[in-house]
């Protein structure tokens, strides 16, 4: 501590002396005593409804932050939790964020409600402009809350983008890896084909059935491989779409 003095203590002592001795102030001693008492027992500030609601929203946002931070390690690491669980987390987070946003919107509307109520008392001695600062303050509170919510969601977006990055990285090498063995197996099967073909005549009719079976197997193999390719393609497309979606939503909007 850099030794900040609390001058209130000085004030306290000075007032005490004033009470004990002849007071130069035009205040009754009882009044002075009441003031001294208020020094000793500090009343906690009583917030208005607005402030209480704002504080509740703040607590929700903090809860949200904790919720995101806790499974962060699990979320980011590739093998700790399943994709399903990640989806669940995302879903819940989205839900929570929406709830917080709704709370903030409610608060925003409440400002204007109170302003309207203030206006209705205009014909009394309360003027319109006396509420301008208060309204500005409430707008400030809402701005702070939305900024905090925004920072929490940005944190989460970063985690999500890492997830997409990983997914795409995983998809890409897979395609490359799978292509080569496919073509290899394809080419490997070809020489066998021709070999067999050459041997067809000498082996005679008994081998024809075998050959037909082999042909079928070959054909099935080819079909399977091409189907596999198609599935792979669709899979990667599916991975890309949410990634693109995420990009659009965070950066474009």
């Amino acid at each position: 501590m850099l030794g900040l003095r609390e001058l209130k203590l000085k004030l306290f002592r000075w007032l005490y002396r004033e009470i004990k001795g002849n007071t130069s102030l035009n205040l009754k001693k009882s009044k002075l005593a009441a003031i001294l008492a208020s020094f000793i027992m500090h009343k906690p500030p009583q917030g208005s409804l607005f402030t209480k609601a704002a504080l509740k929203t703040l607590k929700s946002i903090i809860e949200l932050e904790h919720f995101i931070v806790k499974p962060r390690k699990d979320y980011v690491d590739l093998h700790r939790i399943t994709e399903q669980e990640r989806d669940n987390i995302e879903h819940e987070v989205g839900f929570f964020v929406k709830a917080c946003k709704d709370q903030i919107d409610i608060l925003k509307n409440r400002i204007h409600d109170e302003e309207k109520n203030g206006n209705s008392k205009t014909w009394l001695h309360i003027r319109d402009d006396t509420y301008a600062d208060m309204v500005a303050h409430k707008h400030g509170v809402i701005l702070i809350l939305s900024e905090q919510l925004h920072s929490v969601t940005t944190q989460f977006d970063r985690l999500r983008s890492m997830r997409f990055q990983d997914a795409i990285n995983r998809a890409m090498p897979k395609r490359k890896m799978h292509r080569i063995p496919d073509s290899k197996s394809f080419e490997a099967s070809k020489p066998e084909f021709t070999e067999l073909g050459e041997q067809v005549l000498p082996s005679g009719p008994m081998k024809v059935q075998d050959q037909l079976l082999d042909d079928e197997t070959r054909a099935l193999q080819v079909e399977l491989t091409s189907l596999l390719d198609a599935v792979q393609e669709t899979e990667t497309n599916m991975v890309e779409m949410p990634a693109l979606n995420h990009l659009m939503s965070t950066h474009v909007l």
Partner: protein
Amino acid sequence: MALNLRQKQMNLIVRMLNLNQPPNPGGGISTAAGAEEVYKILIMDAFCRGVLSPLIHVNDLRKHGITLFFPIDKSRQTVPDVPAIYFVRPTPENIDHIAADAARGLYESFHLNFSSSLPRPLLETLALKTLEKDAVHRISKIYDQYLEFVTLEDSLFSLAQPKTYVQINDPSAGDREIEEIVEKIVSGLFCVLATLGVVPVIRCARGGPAEMVASALDSRIRDHLVIKNNLFSESGGLASSFQRPILCIFDRNFELAVGIQHDWSYRPLVHDVLGMKLNRVTMPAEKSAAKSYELDDSDSFWFSNSWSPFQKVAEEIENQLSKYKQDIDEVNKRTGGKDGVEFDGTDLIGNTKHLMNAVNSLPELTERKKMIDKHTNIATVLLGEIKERSLDGYCNLENDMLTKGSVDKSQLLSLLKGKGTKVDKLRLSITYLLSLETTPQSEVEAIEAALRETEVDTCAFQYVKKIKSLNASLAASASSASRSNIVDWAEKLYGQSISAVTAGMKNLLSGGRQLALTRTVEALMEGKPNPEVDSYLVFDPRVPRSGSGSQLRGPFKEAIVFMIGGGNYVEYRSLMELAQRSQPVKHVIYGTTEVLNGVEFVEQLTELGQKMGLGSSGVGPSQQGV
């Protein structure tokens, strides 16, 4: 124990904004949620607003829960159930405002933070007024913050006390006025030391404002150290000089030339031509609204290039621009329309990946572009001014004069008759006066004639001439300087400064002359016997007065250099260079009563010349009062 003044001041301000409660170690948003009083309003006066502005931006205020901020002297309205933080100077006007606000019950609770110590009478006034209006219960806390200074950078501070030079050197100033000024400076310096939490060893030259400030500061610290839990108890018990810094106090008259000359590096140029205040420059605007830029350490280009000569800066901007264009092209190539590539599955995946990378790097690219634009604008304006006023000519000639001690008369006169504002010519002439030991009367007259031709107000020139002549005629006398005799002062001080300048000229380092200030600070920090600084006084607040005096002469690892009357960026740079080239690396903080560029300083010299009656409109010798 590197002294980072900016960080320490920032920490104290952040703590103040959090109602001086210890921060929650959890960090993040949860810091503020513990207390009930989360959303606050901040009320400041103009001075404290200046203190805050180089340190904190409006957006950052919101991070600490400040929803609004207001000036104290404007009328404000009620915002019930919200605590208000007041950060103001302890003046009677501010106390009146606070008492009035409390009486009106504008806010739920008042947390009063005064930028320096609140004097007892003002505290009693506050108490009285709030008692009368039955508003005492609103005053929640009162603090002395000791933050009455502006930290412009990690190692640069200013007391923001305008016109100190004029006030101290004013021939009509009486004892009381001088004492008041000294008291103000001491108060500001005390705040700086309290924030740093160090008790330095103070050294200054004999005679003059530096000695007055040093001895008053010494007394102030001594009085304070008697208190048990004083502000310096953290550093108590550090006896060795290796851990305590040295505080060197100088007066502007010690080396006048630095405050006047033109400089060619980026930062002093910006300060001189565009007038930088609180790290902001405002660009002169013709068509659109005036743009203002912020120039501080967070701007990486500024951080790395602000001490380079102007040509190099222009080259650097070009480099950055071409690099930026390259990067943009690359991003476009990867993600834009590709002609020759086939559109199949693999490429789609790669496409998305590149798109992601591109989008992630976009914010950084935008930031770079903004920075490049900013510096391009600044450099363009500077270039225009340089061409129009042929500032390069002034720089070179002044530098030549100061380093060689001789002048190329024809070049001097041609510049005086040529381009440049009136103040530029005045500055050149004054530099001429200061760089030569003897100035032949004929040359001086020629210069004065040239100045009169171009209708330059020569008050400042006459003032410096007068000071110089007084010094020359009384050079032999060794009388001690009495406070009331301003002439004795000037001659004592100027005697030192003349010798300092001539000695400085003989010490040529590569790339320019070494400032007398830097040389002296180096000698003081080393602590070895040195004829230049042996006569300097020593004040050590930790050593009892009756003792044999402080034995701490050095070497010192850290120094705080304070210039009374106005400092500038050229001195700052010189001291930073000293710190860096020392073996081992030392640490220097530079502070001053206010940061002045050449134009502003010459204004003060002009004012002094006018006060002395040295008008340029052909005033005869009989009218020259002292």
